[in-house]
């Protein structure tokens, strides 16, 4: 039901300064708890982006430096000890020295031993008859290495 006093009440109220408004505004005590203040203000900070940026700039730089050092070290080690750094003759030389210092290679010994001594001496005689004395001497040294205790006939 329309009430004639209502427009006046509303107009008076909307103009401001009404007793009702003044009384209501007397109690402005309820405020959000401080925990809410903190939460909202923290949320308003561009934490995620700036923190990540600072995290990147501050923590990734030493990380990158450490990685560079490790990479350099690995590179140096690879140059010194890597397979490309080895000279092809290094290891065989060492092996060869060790072989000669200890004993003749068993495989070579076996292959030489398998040669018939009489036939070998015949070949050496043939080399001398043909005037290939250098070759005959080499073969003789090998023969002696293979058969150090073989009694060679005087004619040889």
């Amino acid at each position: 039901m329309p009430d004639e006093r209502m427009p006046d009440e509303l107009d008076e109220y909307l103009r401001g300064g009404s007793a009702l408004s003044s009384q209501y505004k007397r109690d402005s005590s309820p405020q959000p708890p401080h925990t809410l203040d903190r939460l909202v203000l923290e949320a308003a900070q561009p934490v995620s982006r700036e923190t990540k940026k600072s995290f990147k700039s501050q923590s990734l730089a030493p990380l990158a430096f450490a990685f560079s050092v490790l990479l350099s070290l690995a590179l140096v080690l690879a140059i010194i000890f890597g397979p490309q750094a080895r000279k092809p003759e290094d290891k065989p030389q060492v092996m060869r020295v060790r072989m000669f210092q200890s004993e003749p290679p068993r495989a070579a010994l076996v292959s030489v031993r398998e040669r018939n001594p009489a036939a070998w001496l015949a070949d050496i005689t043939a080399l001398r008859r043909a005037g290939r004395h250098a070759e005959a001497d080499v073969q003789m040294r090998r023969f002696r290495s293979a058969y150090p205790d073989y009694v060679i006939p005087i004619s040889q």
Partner: protein
Amino acid sequence: MAPRMLWPTMEPQDADTGLMLRYRDGDTAAFAALYAHYKGPLYRYLLRHVRNAGAAADLFQEVWSHLIATRARYEPRAKFATFLFHIAHNCAIDFFRRDLNLRRALPAHDPDSPPLEPEVPEHQRPDRLAEFVEQQSALLAAVAALPQEQREAFLLREESGLSLEEIARVTDVPVETAKSRLRYAIRKLKDALRPIQEPEALQLRTYA
């Protein structure tokens, strides 16, 4: 619920809109200024509107979180207060919807048991109201007793200083509806306070 803020006309910028624009562009000090200005009114609006301290705190945080999350898309289409309280209105509407569903899901209230009291802050509880000035207590109690729409219209007017047109915008209703709600709210509040302001009139009516 995302606030609907597709208001077509660009209004003149107020100082708070300027602060919000600065915050949108990365000035967090501008946000701190906005927050300091609006935290009290917004909190009281929510507290006295939903009449539940815990829910008010949640909604308060939700409103600001929404504002923060959508700041990059902020375009000044109304006063900042209209923008802020529109978000708050939508959050409160969602709360009432959830609250209604919850009440429907709960067992029916026993008519012989004491009536359910709205959860209000300690200093506003009925058993504490005696500690307050009588009129002030009566006013807050009368505000709490208003129907939801009328209560919101009154709180928006009091806490944010919005005009009738802005209240209509915030609550998504025609201006005449907002005007009617506010008019009835004022009348009911005045009627509730009259016996306290004019005790002799009450006595006359009582003994008449």
